[in-house]
């Protein structure tokens, strides 16, 4: 019986995409990892499936149990487990750096140096976690809307009064990334949100709801994730993706090994694989911009800017509160 959320070397869920062409294992140090590890992830199902499939081919001796849940549930589960002693997952692969940073700060993540991590810009990694792909916060616009805004500030244009949408940082990690960027990095600061609110901008829960809203015509424009916009476009929804001239807000989705893991070699080998060329190709194959430009995938269509995660860390509550002071919710 196929165990849905845990494709493994032995059983591979049917909806798993074919692993990338050259899945030749990269030269691994002796001895070959084996046993069972558990992956805690909030990354979308398709992506996880693809990567795990590839990994299992490369490491037939390792069984990977996948526990996938939205960030909130995953975090809650981990919190509960911590009170029982330790995190029961071996590898964490999350959507955005926020929570990983927290775990790192609590020394819950293993500090080591993946060989594959060499190429990664320090901006997208820490001592114990490494970016695996990019989520780009971009602008989406209804096809029938004449000329879309070209920059973020354009969202506040009177033309879009009551017809622009943004995701709620309280619900979506990516939206929080945007908040962090505007609050800390950009010149505008929180005024950006003030002006949006003043212009009757509506907040919905997630980037996907923004895309859907724009597609349905509830909104003319909105702030969403490139992946979400692309999926809609390819399926034929009447929307267009606009890459902000002042740069898409790029967040990296980090992976790391739990310090308390009982099977470090296997756990590490999984991280290595995710960061390796084939892993990156698999990620790219599911519509995300991989951390390695060489792996292909949808290229950034314009400049990218990066939230100051270090700066945002520890100030989440404060940032959210000041945001809610503007948007409520």
């Amino acid at each position, binding site marked *: 019986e196929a165990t849905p959320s845990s494709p493994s070397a032995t059983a591979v869920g*049917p909806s798993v995409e074919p692993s990338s062409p050259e899945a030749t294992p990269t030269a691994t140090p002796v001895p070959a990892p084996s046993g069972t590890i558990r992956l805690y992830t909030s990354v979308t199902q398709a992506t996880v499936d693809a990567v795990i499939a590839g990994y299992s081919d490369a490491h037939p001796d390792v069984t990977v149990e996948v526990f996938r849940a939205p960030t909130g549930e995953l975090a809650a589960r981990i919190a509960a487990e911590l009170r029982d002693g330790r995190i029961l997952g071996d590898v964490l692969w999350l959507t955005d750096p926020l929570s990983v940073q927290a775990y790192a700060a609590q020394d819950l993540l293993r500090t080591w140096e993946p060989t594959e991590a060499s190429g990664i810009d320090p901006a997208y990694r820490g001592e114990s976690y490494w970016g695996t792909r990019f989520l780009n916060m971009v602008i989406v616009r209804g096809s029938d809307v004449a000329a879309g805004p070209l920059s973020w500030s354009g969202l506040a244009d009177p033309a879009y009064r009551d017809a622009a949408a943004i995701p709620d940082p309280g619900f979506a990690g990516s939206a929080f990334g945007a908040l962090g960027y505007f609050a800390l990095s950009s010149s505008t600061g929180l005024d950006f949100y003030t002006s949006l609110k003043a212009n009757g901008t509506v907040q919905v829960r997630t980037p996907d709801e923004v895309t859907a809203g724009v597609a349905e015509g509830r909104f003319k424009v909105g702030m969403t994730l490139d992946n979400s916009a692309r999926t809609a476009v390819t399926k034929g929804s009447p929307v267009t993706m606009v890459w902000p001239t002042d740069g898409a807000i790029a967040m990296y989705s980090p992976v790391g090994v739990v310090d308390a893991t009982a099977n470090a070699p296997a756990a590490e080998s999984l991280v290595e694989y995710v960061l390796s060329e084939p892993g990156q190709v698999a990620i790219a194959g599911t519509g995300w911009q991989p951390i390695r430009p060489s792996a292909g995938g949808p290229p950034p269509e314009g400049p990218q800017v990066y939230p100051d995660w270090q700066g945002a860390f520890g100030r989440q509550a404060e940032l959210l509160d000041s945001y809610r002071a503007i948007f409520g919710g």
Partner: protein
Amino acid sequence: MVEALPVRRVAWLTAAGLVAAIIGWPMIRLFGVAFERGIGTVLETLTGPQATAAIWNSLWTGAIVAVLAVASGTGAALLTERSALPGRRWLRAGLLLPLLVPPFVTAFGWARAFGPRGLTDQVLGVALPGMYGPLGIVVVLVVAATPISYLIVAGALASRVEPDLERAARASGATWPEALWTITLPLLRPALLSALVVAFVFAINAFGVPAVLGTPAGFATITTRLYQDLALSADPTAFVRATTMAATLVVVALVVVGSADALFVGRGAARTALPSGSGLTRGRRAVAAGLGAVIVLTTLLPLVALVLSALTRATGLDPVPANWTLDNFASALDSRFLGGLAHSLVLAVAAATVVLVLGAIGVAARHGRSRALGTAITLGFAVPGSALAVAVLLAYGGWLRDTLAIILVAYVAKFWALGHRQLAGSVERLPGDQVRAARASGAGAVDAFRSVVVPTLRPSVIAAWLVVFVFALHELTMSSLLYGPGNATLAVIVLNVQQLGDPTITAAMAVLLVGVVAIAAVPLAIAGFGREPANLRERVSP
């Protein structure tokens, strides 16, 4: 003055023990976490402007929803159970329909149907103003909660019937509304209270609806706030904040439920009456038609909207045949789905049955102290899923982690109240002599309970089982937190697909989910309520 049976005591002890294990212990763990940083932190969390706003919002929406839902549920019950409306069977089924739809889907469907750019908007150019915001939340929650109160009240009405009671009122010069007000409703009071309590609690820990409809209006409730805190709960303080919120919800429920139960005190057994039906001799068709219309509008239309968007190739395209496709269903209906379905069915049946047995024990344990019992049981229902799941994890994660068993524990803790309330509400009005007659015929206490009490309550019993079954089949939050590798539930699969962020596929999933539930539940519903109670065959006009 009924003799204190040993059986009673045993039942009470059993029930109490189970309550302590399944609800009490997890709650203690929960509060432990909430207070671990000291009362100061708790107060700080609760007194923050946003927190107070959220609590207040939960309270007032909860109250309004409870009142409206019970009002409409009772009205419907009186119509279908108390007068010979044409097509009663179908009306009953229709009234129960919303039960089959998971609340988050209901919200989704309503938005699609009546929201801006929704079905009515596209076809007629009219959208429900305030669909996004408190109004929408209340309306949708009322629709979702009505069937529950309908079941409780209808069960009570059908469980014990004495037409003469209401006739006596009429013969005393009371018009039928008067008789309703002075006789029927007072006799239904225990059931009405149960319904109020359950509806209120249902409303204050609803998440999907306020999340989808509230966010655009910046309208937060305890549950949405809780969710947001959990999302950040990699940060330990955030996690404590979350549990604090959950604990608050528990306290709120404790107060409301407790005071409601206090009203039971000193109430002797009451019997309800079916009317002669002469109350509604004329205009039965009109009434039936009206009721039908309401059902179509509130329940069927949203479902239609849902199906349409599930059929549409991509969001935003007009839902016309040109744009139709089954791909969404295809990508929804994969092996995961079937696996999840299997797990969910097992869990739902198990949960419903266990809850019923527990409910029976609770009823058998009925006397003074069992009110405290009822209150305690209702708490489980009051805690939002995510918090309850965390609590259960804290309490039993050690042994049961990643098994279906731990999910079952959580389900039982959550849905026990539904079974208990329903049965207690109805059993309140079983006359002692009937049970005595059984005993005097040689039936032991348990035997008498099985052969006389249970059958007399048959409608309520089936209702209770169905509600729990359906709720368990829908259950989203708890299982997505508790499932382990290899035993994801249906709802978890749906959730994961939803994460793909494609509304059309989500719609497809939702439609499938509803379909599954319908296939499983409707036959039972017909079996349970299709049969006319004897009394109806009796004195209702041919």
